[in-house]
């Protein structure tokens, strides 16, 4: 099998695997949000809960990784099929988007876990 076909099949199952895991993550995230705003929605209240919480950081850190993998693969396919970009350009753009999602997401997780109140 050509190496690029192996990559295509891998992308396909990684997108499925990340989707399956994220269904659980999205459920937990929704329940968490509903619970979190019960006492009102303020930055102070949220940060008091997230700062220093290793469990929170691990959960959302992994969530960010899953989103980066899943969304970028899907975006690459959309660019090929709907924008008619060549495979190479589509993959380059989708990898850059994956990197951007990863950096922005992990930075946000770090900020609310380890950052200090303004």
């Amino acid at each position, binding site marked *: *099998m*050509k*190496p*690029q*076909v*192996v990559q*295509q*099949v*891998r992308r*396909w*199952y990684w997108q499925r695997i990340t989707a399956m895991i994220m269904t659980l993550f999205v459920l937990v995230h929704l329940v968490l949000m509903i619970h979190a705003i019960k006492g009102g929605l303020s930055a102070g209240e949220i940060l008091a809960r997230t700062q220093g919480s290793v469990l929170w950081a691990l959960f959302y850190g992994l969530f960010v990784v899953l989103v980066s993998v899943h969304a970028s693969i899907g975006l690459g*396919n959309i660019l*090929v*099929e*709907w924008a008619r970009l060549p*495979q190479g350009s589509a993959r380059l753009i989708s990898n850059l988007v994956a990197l951007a999602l990863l950096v922005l997401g992990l930075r946000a997780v770090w900020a609310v876990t380890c950052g200090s109140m303004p």
Partner: protein
Amino acid sequence: MSASAPMLRVEVWRGGEEGRFQTYEVPRRTSQTVLDVVTYIQQTLDSTLSYRYACRVGMCGSCAMRVNGVARWTCRTHVTRVADDDRLQLAPLANLPIVKDLVTDMAEFFNKNDRALGRFRGNRSRHERMAQVRPDSPARREADAGIECIGCAVCYSSCDVVAWRPDFLGPAALNRAWTLVNDERDIERAPRLVAVAGDGGCHACHTQGSCTVRCPKHLTPTASIAGLKRVTARALLRGEMPTTEGNS
């Protein structure tokens, strides 16, 4: 026929890729099929009209075209089922180059069958015992479910992924490959899985199901393609796929 016979207003694609719809008036008859309508036009109104048919009984798969925008086998499609307000619009199949009028160039469709290794290859000669395949075995049932394809290209014409990715093998070729993957006598399983993997093969399918909805033989290419996705991904994970390009 009497002058008061109800008439059908039929728009027919004329020309090649560049062309236009031409309108004909065709008398309604009882139990009239869309193919009857086309034949009436060609034999009575305009002998320059080109179209294909052979068996007229839903076996050969050659008379497919788009009827009011939907790909159908015309020999088994009754006018009463599809003509809204006594109007029909007939166009050649989508996703294939138009040769002339209602005739498309099917070469790419059949070439893709070859690219998916859609032909049986066994290793027994006529002098050996015939293979015993249990009719109720799961693999035989999977093969049975897809085996009745007549190659009409209705699924191929209805598939959005074929329109978006011209190198996509398409539902018919992948369905054929799936029947052979489930044929325990066939000896080309591994190269076939390689041939149908990736973005030109089963993994590009969006599972939209147009092929399954439109298939005149009520096959489910969508399920066949899902089966191929499962088996190829598993074979790759287990290292059962040759990871360099084969000779096929």
